[in-house]
């Protein structure tokens, strides 16, 4: 028989306000095995913990129940308390009488009754608890960064500078992300390429950083400190080691009619291409859907001109397997597709563009070499209308996103200002619902657009854009301050499209068992206190994959994630959770049900010799759990049809005892 101590916490008035803690302690005193039951204002305080430690020693307790807040909050605290008094920490049970009781009940009587029941269940469980000893697992001192935008690059640089090797996996042929496509950056208006490309080069030249460009994560196994990742290197048809990036093949390639994704389809590239001049790695890539040689077998010009002999039309996708201690997700964002917003005529007129397209139209390396020209006729536009919140803040409507995309107010102010600065003859309107500029020097920036540059900010939304026969665009909009409906004849309309996570983020989250919100942004472990960690141990978050952000914020988070990774990688080993599964070999029938459900790949099968009751021996296939890989999620215990799988610390009999105690 266990000797159990029960400690009921008031949590100030948090619990004591709706639960009669004296009554709870009194009632639990008479439960079997309970030798002491008491209450105290704050059990987690120094004094509260001393009370528990003294009771463990004085009453020779073999198990304790703390009726307090959620185990997520203070289970670790009370386990340490028990250990300090010489009690095995896994002989501690928490009855959550705060989040699951006092906070959700208003009536003292009901709350008290429920608290007693929860306490009783925990006591029933402690009777069946057994001391457990946590093992240790080594930490692989290498990090993986998925996504090579500014977020991924910054995280990788910071980790590498601390001396740990980092691999960056980037799905595109070059790193750089969206920042490489942006022209100038708010709020300082320095050129994006001038501040980004040195960082790209730093990453490429860092002896601790290895870039897998044009690659994807294909499989993730393992757990914090010991992930095993399969990386798919997509076939470029060019040997990245031999290719010098001279660009001769690009020049000579006769197939020049492929929409150029780097310029968002606003000009053409050749079938063999280097996305932009400062690409890292600067290696050519053949687009197999456009290449004449690959489609028809005829041509092969690039192989003839390539002096390095880098072209290889037979190249296949290849796979690499590598082990990592930590994984950082930095998969960024994309502007949403505007097909559903036909009121803005995006699909009807080339002169209606997204803001990212506008960046390319003003970029010296863009399709118009930096001169702002109307896509339809290449003429200089005189009247420009910018529309904010296109697809953002849509809630209850069938299209768009419910959240604010956060960056659009600032980049629209930037675009409007730059238009007026470079082309003073232009008339620039910005239609806004709210202007949100809560950042350092942000509001000043927006006000400059209005006060110094004379951008016409109008409170109201555009309802309709109608392309006219003369090539202009008729913009019908609200001016809510003047109480007018405006009709503006514009030459160009620029839509600040909402941004959303990359499409590949959801399948990646499944591979990583990392959680996401309903919008497919990765969720952080705690929205305030752990903003760069995912709830899955060893998986960290950097940049827009976690939520819309501008560059300063992205870079801060990227460095924050790096600090967390470094904190993990400096450790030689991690304490394992001893609450892992094990199978009873005598009951296991080797059906594989558990292996199929295990998200961590912790279960394997062995053929073992068993002595049968009739003294013969038989070879049977049985499951065995690798305790270093098992995370104790319990999926296998539910799947096992023969009841052979069980979880330490949460055994079937312990759970049943709790249920029985509740139903008593």
């Amino acid at each position: 028989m266990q000797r159990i101590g029960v400690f009921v916490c008031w949590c100030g008035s948090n619990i004591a306000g709706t639960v009669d803690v004296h009554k709870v302690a009194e009632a639990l005193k008479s439960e079997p095995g309970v030798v002491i039951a008491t209450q105290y204002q704050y059990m987690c305080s120094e004094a509260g913990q001393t009370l528990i430690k003294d009771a463990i020693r004085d009453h020779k307790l073999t198990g304790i129940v703390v009726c307090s807040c959620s185990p997520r909050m203070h289970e670790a605290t009370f386990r340490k308390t028990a250990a300090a008094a010489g009690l095995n920490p896994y002989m501690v049970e928490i009855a959550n009488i705060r989040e699951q009781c006092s906070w959700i009940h208003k009536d003292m009587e009901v709350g008290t009754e429920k608290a007693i029941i929860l306490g009783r269940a925990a006591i029933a469980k402690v009777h069946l608890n057994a001391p457990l000893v946590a093992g240790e697992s080594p930490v692989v001192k290498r990090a993986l960064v998925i996504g090579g935008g500014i977020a991924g690059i910054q995280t990788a640089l910071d980790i590498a500078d601390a001396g740990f090797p980092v691999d960056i996996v980037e799905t595109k042929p070059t790193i750089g992300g969206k920042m490489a496509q942006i022209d100038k950056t708010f709020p300082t208006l320095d050129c994006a390429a001038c501040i980004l490309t040195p960082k790209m080069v730093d990453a490429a030249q860092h002896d601790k950083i290895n870039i897998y460009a044009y690659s994807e994560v294909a499989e993730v196994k393992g757990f914090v400190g010991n992930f095993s990742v399969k990386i798919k290197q997509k076939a470029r048809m060019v040997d990245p080691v031999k290719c010098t990036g001279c660009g001769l093949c690009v020049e000579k390639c006769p197939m020049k009619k492929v929409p150029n994704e780097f310029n968002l389809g606003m000009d053409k590239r050749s079938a063999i291409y280097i996305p932009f001049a400062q690409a890292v790695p600067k290696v050519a890539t053949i687009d197999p859907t456009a290449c004449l040689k690959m489609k028809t077998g005829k041509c092969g010009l690039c192989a003839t001109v390539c002096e390095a002999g880098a072209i290889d039309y037979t190249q296949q996708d290849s796979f690499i397997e590598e082990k990592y201690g930590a994984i950082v997700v930095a998969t960024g964002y994309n502007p949403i597709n505007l097909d559903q917003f036909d009121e803005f005529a995006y699909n009807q007129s080339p002169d209606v563009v997204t803001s990212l397209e506008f960046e390319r139209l003003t970029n010296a390396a863009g399709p118009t070499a930096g001169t702002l020209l109307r896509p339809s006729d290449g003429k200089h536009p005189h009247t420009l209308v910018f529309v904010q919140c296109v697809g953002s803040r849509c809630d209850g409507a069938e299209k768009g996103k419910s959240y604010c995309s956060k960056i659009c107010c600032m980049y629209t102010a930037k675009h409007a200002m730059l238009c007026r600065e470079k082309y003073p003859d232009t008339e620039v309107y910005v239609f806004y619902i709210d202007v949100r500029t809560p950042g350092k020097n942000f509001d000043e920036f927006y006000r400059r657009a209005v006060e110094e540059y004379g951008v016409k900010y109008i409170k109201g939304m555009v309802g309709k854009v109608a392309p006219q026969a003369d090539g202009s665009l008729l913009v019908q909009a609200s001016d809510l301050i003047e109480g007018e409906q405006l009709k503006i004849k514009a030459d160009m309309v620029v839509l600040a499209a909402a941004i959303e996570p990359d499409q590949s983020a959801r399948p990646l989250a499944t591979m990583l068992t990392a959680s996401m919100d309903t919008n497919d942004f990765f969720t952080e472990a705690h929205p305030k206190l752990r903003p760069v960690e995912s709830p899955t141990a060893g998986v960290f978050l950097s940049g827009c994959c976690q939520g819309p952000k501008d560059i300063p914020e992205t870079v801060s988070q990227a460095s924050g994630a790096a600090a967390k990774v470094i904190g993990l990688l400096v450790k030689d080993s991690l304490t394992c959770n001893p609450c892992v599964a094990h199978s009873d070999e005598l009951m296991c029938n080797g059906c594989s049900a558990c292996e199929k459900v295990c998200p961590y790949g912790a279960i394997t099968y062995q053929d073992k010799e068993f002595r049968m009751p009739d003294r013969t021996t038989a070879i049977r296939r049985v499951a065995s759990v690798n305790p270093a890989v098992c995370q104790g999620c319990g999926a296998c215990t539910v799947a096992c049809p023969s009841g052979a799988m069980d979880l330490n610390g949460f055994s079937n009999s312990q759970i049943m005892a709790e249920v029985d105690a509740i139903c008593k």
Partner: protein
Amino acid sequence: MSHNKETLREIVIETAGVNPRKCMKCGKCSATCPAYDEMEYHPHQFVSMVEAGKIEELMNSKSIWMCLSCFACVERCPRGVEPASFIEAARLALIRQQGKNHLKAEDVPAKLNDKLPGQAIVSAFRKYSK
């Protein structure tokens, strides 16, 4: 039958079946409205007037008869607010208050002719039928 301000507000909101508080005052409805210039109150104002309980003013305004029931505002509203539904509700409240039924379903077939667009009948039915 006449109601006090608060009940009237509740009746209109319930009939419309949409929540005026979802409006973020973007004005996209009024930007879309083809009858804007004919109205003294405009679609985004229908919403704020309902929220503020100014139903009598709305019921007595020309706007509720100028609305074409084209539902462009409903289609474009990013928040699913449906300004036109408030207009319909205000019209209905008025008609019910006056105890009149100006257009009965049985009368419709007789009024149909080649020159009259179907939309006009539908619109008239929405406005004048109880």
